[in-house]
């Protein structure tokens, strides 16, 4: 039940894009087309779960054990960046089919604050390993959900007549605001 709560909170209440403001650059960048949005969502789920696990291990068995928690930022980002680069190279060579669908989004994730942010949140919430796993997954699902919803809306907006100054990014941001508003109603659910 606890894990279920973590999951629901991660997907809806603390939605990483719309409530925590993490990962907004790719949110705007990759939401222009549904196809890209879906690929991006999948890639984030994939990477975030892996990064969540590995950073939890680094934090618990290295940082805390050595009492060097102030090195968290440096070590996390280095580990995440290396992990992503490694996975990218691995997929490219070993599973080209998966690489074509998902792998190409990986570099986009290196500097995605959603991944780094979620890992840091896991630590500051003092989750257990399993808790960290579930919450990473739920943040990623939340990211994907918001991204895909947003891409759908944006494809429609492309058909609408938007006043010139508001076009493109501007209207996208306002739209994101409205979607964020709907997500606010999840507050208090858990």
């Amino acid at each position: 039940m606890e894990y279920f709560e973590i999951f629901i909170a991660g997907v809806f209440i603390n939605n990483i894009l719309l409530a925590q403001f993490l990962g907004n650059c790719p949110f705007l960048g990759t939401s222009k087309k549904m196809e890209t949005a879906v690929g991006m969502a999948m890639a984030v789920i994939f990477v975030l779960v892996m990064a969540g696990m590995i950073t939890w291990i680094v934090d618990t068995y290295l940082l805390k054990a050595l009492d060097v928690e102030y090195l968290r930022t440096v070590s996390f980002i280095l580990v995440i960046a290396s992990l992503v680069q490694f996975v990218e190279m691995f997929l490219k060579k070993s599973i080209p089919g998966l690489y074509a669908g998902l792998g190409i989004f990986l570099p986009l994730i290196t500097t995605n604050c959603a991944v780094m942010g979620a890992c840091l949140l896991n630590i500051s919430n003092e989750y257990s390993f399993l808790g960290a796993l579930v919450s990473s997954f739920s943040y990623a699902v939340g990211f994907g959900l918001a991204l895909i919803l947003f891409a759908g809306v944006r494809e429609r907006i492309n058909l609408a007549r938007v006043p010139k100054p508001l076009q493109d990014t501007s209207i996208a941001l306002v739209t994101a605001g409205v979607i964020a508003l709907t997500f606010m109603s999840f507050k208090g659910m858990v």
Partner: protein
Amino acid sequence: MIPALLFMLGIGAVCGIVLSLSSKVFYVYEDPRIAQVENNLAAANCGGCGYAGCSSAAEAVVNGLAPPSVCVISSKEGVEEVAKIMGVDAGAAESLFSYNMCEGGNRADNKYHYMGISSCKAMALVFGGKRVCGVGCIGLGDCVKACQFDALKLGANGYPVVDDDKCVGCGACQQACPKDIIVVKTLSEQLMKFNQAQDALAPCAQTCPAEINIPRYINQLREGKYKEAVQTIRMRNPLPLACGRVCPHPCEDECRRGIEDEAVSINQLKRFVADYEMNSGSRIPIKCAPDTGKKVAVIGGGPAGLSCAFFLRRIGHQVDIFEAMPKLGGIIRYGIPEYRLPKKVLDWEIQGILDLGIKDFCNVRFGVDFGLGSLMASGYEAVFLGVGAWEDYSLGIEGEDLDGCFKGIDFLQRFSSGEKIKLGKTAAVVGGGNSAIDCVRTLLRLGLEKVYIVYRRTRNEMPANEVEIVASEEEGVEFVFLAAPTKVIGDENGKATQLEYLKMELGEPDASGRRRPVPIEGSETLLDVEMVISAIGQSPDASFKEQDPHKRMTELELTRWNTIDNDPAILQASIPYIFTGGDSATGPALVVDAIGSGRRAARSIDLFLKGEPVEPVKDSLQQKRIPESIFTKVDGIKKTARAKMPEIPVDQRLDSMIEVDLVLPEDAAHKEAERCLNCCRICYNPDIDFPIAKAN
């Protein structure tokens, strides 16, 4: 301090080792330029460009899907650096430009009253737009809205106008347009575009064998943009001066104005702008794509070869032309008499083509002076064979080799080359085509007293251009119709004195639709002439096939008409690196046919050189008509007379080879251009409805 140092040392070492090892273990070959380009993108992997990270963006740049300026945070130097890397491959480095097909003209009616949002895309979803014209511009300016660079405006008439200086070729407009009106293409792509079934094409542009965008240049002429008009023509035809004089303009047969009124005099307008350039004293610069480093040999410097060389050069290939005659031009130099196409004009035009950086080697005959083997050894990667059709058919009658008997093209060519030919006082020219007319009109100018045309059918069936027939009538040629020569009778010195022919009558129509002439038994008649010239058609001279010692040559297949066999859609011959077009592939045809096939061959050669499959253009029209664009009636036309071609009076022109047809004066050309209906160019009413149309 120590644990921190050790921890960071360890983690750095682990990451370094993992990354460096996996970069070896999981090494996958990719285009080295991708890495180079990526090194010059911002590497923030922010996704701002819409691609999934910098490496995808780099890949897109290398594959030509994204411009070097794709990165939204890259510095100017970065963009230049990327452009430089891509510059290695000229094909991809070629700058892209938007180009709109639909620009100005008459409006199409509304099918329905549209009240939706002001977006082309939205309107197109409702029955393909509210205009009756299903292919044209909708005009709500989705492309203008899509352009980030302010390079597009809705022009005064409500259609999009591209500012080439601002356009970066990003393709946003093309994606926004639901009608394929606005396309982003490199110069090469624009040059190699062929008419397709879904294009917005006026009937004339569908009919023109060279596929010139006729309404576009007429419109440019009307606006006084003569240079632009010439450039439009040169996108499809490297010989506007020659064509403007000799083209039988099949385009005019399909002119919509011709349904209710007289057709627009398209060819005279072409001649007007082409002459304008020549007389202006300076040449309009012709843009070429960056060099590709590939070499192509063009054999035969006639219209097909010149056209093929011109377009290959413009898309960046190195081209050398090999010509058997002393000068380039082929049939338009040696087959078309001076009074129709002055040599001075032709020289000027050909020089313009050579100025693009094409080398010409004259007086070298394929199969004798050089062959396939020597071409391959010199590093040519493809060959265009455009040797023309120079072998006159013979009549196959008795006495054909008597003194005073000639063959049409041979006669014209010898005369053009300056050979002194012993002439008689009277002559009969057998045949009804343009060559026959050229012969009789030349003979008249040489001072013959009586010149006959002997043709086995009637005037209606003559394949020669109507204007030519009329001109020869005016100049006093006598026509002997329904006459089939049977014998040339000579005197004791072997000199021709008489031509014997059988009278004919017309029977049932044959395969070509012309009524077949049937001889009338016992109707032999004698015509007193000192010269007999047979001009009944030609076939290619394929003697090079036997003369060339290269083994591969035996693989070259010929048809039973001695033409070089090819796939008509791609013009590839039976030897894959040989392409062919013009008369040598089709038998005698129009100059403009040869020009069109030269360009088509250039496209195939380009694909061949790039290692891509040489496939036909999809949905290619190749002079088929788009049925919905061919009308049977056109409303609202006020009849206005077609411009009359100025010409030198008959009494002044027969003493010399002076050019007979003159160019239209400027005001007449404008008046004629006004007669153009601008078919298939603009399909909405720009005055009303939407603010975006009003604002711009």
